[in-house]
């Protein structure tokens, strides 16, 4: 075997022969048995050389790895694990948010009936009380005025109310009812009636005070022309009136010395406390 034949076989093994050269090589392998044997042996030797080279390389690598290990290697972070962890965290947050939202919704829904609904301020005529006096004075009912005040703060309500009391003897405050913490007061004076709704249980005290101030102003402006105007009024009625139209007989009302006679058509309803300071 010549040196050129070895080079030719190397070229064949490396896949460098093409076209006519490759065809000639294959024809020679078929025809020349000695050449075919040399080709087989060389292929075997090259395969073994590659195997040996791999072993050599592995051995050299292992020796190098001892040195590389001393210098350390980068700590491993699994991208796949990081992604799956992130997905788990996001999923957990989402699920917890949904649960929290559901809990909040149902809790809120259960609480909502307990919450006080704002009262609708539809005009509501005070229940008229049928008494002989009221019937007699029906003609004068035209002078009645009704005003309804929205549920504002006590201060706002007091500021809104204007009391122009001419005759203090006609002034009265009646607590008509209390429903769900909302107090309904009826203010009467000089033949006028105002209905006030408030969440302030002491609104009657405030109004009484305010009425006194109004009277004092009137007295000062009229230089004390009327003696009865100088009379300081006190809270007249602080009683919870039931919604029913139960009314004391007018005779009883008259007998009660504490009860201030109301202006025409405005009469106390229901139970009137007997401790009128009037």
């Amino acid at each position, binding site marked *: 075997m010549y040196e050129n034949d070895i*080079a030719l076989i190397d070229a064949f093994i490396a896949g460098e022969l093409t076209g006519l050269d490759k065809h000639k090589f294959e024809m020679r392998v078929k025809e020349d048995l000695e050449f075919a044997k040399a080709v087989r*042996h060389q292929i075997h030797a090259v395969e073994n050389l590659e*195997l040996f080279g791999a072993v*050599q390389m592995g051995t050299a690598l*292992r020796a190098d790895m001892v040195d590389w290990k001393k210098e350390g290697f980068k700590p491993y972070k699994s991208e796949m694990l990081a992604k799956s962890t992130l997905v788990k965290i996001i999923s957990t947050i989402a699920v917890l948010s949904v649960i929290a939202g559901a809990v909040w919704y149902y809790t809120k829904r259960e609480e909502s009936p307990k919450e006080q609904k704002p009262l609708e301020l539809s005009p509501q005529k005070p229940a008229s009380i049928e008494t002989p006096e009221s019937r007699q004075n029906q003609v004068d009912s035209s002078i009645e005025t009704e005003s309804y005040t929205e549920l504002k703060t006590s201060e706002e309500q007091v500021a809104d109310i204007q009391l122009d009391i001419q005759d203090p003897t006609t002034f009265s405050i009646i607590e008509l009812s209390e429903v769900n913490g909302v107090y309904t007061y009826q203010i009467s004076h000089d033949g006028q009636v105002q209905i006030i709704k408030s969440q302030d249980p002491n609104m009657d005290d405030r109004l009484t005070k305010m009425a006194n101030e109004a009277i004092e102003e009137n007295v000062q402006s009229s230089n004390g022309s009327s003696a009865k105007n100088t009379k300081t009024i006190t809270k007249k009625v602080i009683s919870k009136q039931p919604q029913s139209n139960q009314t004391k007989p007018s005779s009883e009302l008259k007998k009660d010395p504490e009860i201030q006679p109301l202006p025409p058509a405005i009469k106390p309803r229901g139970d009137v406390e007997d401790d009128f300071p009037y």
Partner: protein
Amino acid sequence: MKNENHIITGIKSGDSEVLKSVYSDYFGMVRNLVIKNSGSELDAEDVFQDALVILFKKFNHSEFRLTVKFKTFLYSVCRNIWLTELKVRSGKSIKLKDYEKHIDIGHELALNWKKTQEETIQRMENAMKYLGDKCQQILLMFYYQKHSMQQIATALDYADADSVKTQKYKCIRQLKRSLNP
């Protein structure tokens, strides 16, 4: 991708700097795979060593084209090596816990090439000892590392490429005789 090409070229030529950087960047990944799947630190080193040798052989194959990230390919090779080793040790099929994406890299890479060819390796080692150091270097540089005659001449201080060619002819003829008496 440019960096990946640099790694492939480095492994093909056995560039120690590239191999070192591959170790630094990816040994942690291989170690995690092996240790989390019933292996030891030493097993991880064996797997990494064998994987690099397989990569070297694969990359030097003219038909080979890397179609995935180098990291994925390395993980897949190591995974196959360790899976095969676990099957040999336990005698049954094993399901690995995976920490990276992997691809099917074919049966030939799953074989534990050292164990299956121990006899051939032993015979080859004996033959190479008989050849001497100079012949070993020339043959390995030409057939294994795929260096050109000129590169070998420069590396081994020969006068020119023809001198190496003549020397190589003598060496391969001697090796063939040793392997096929």
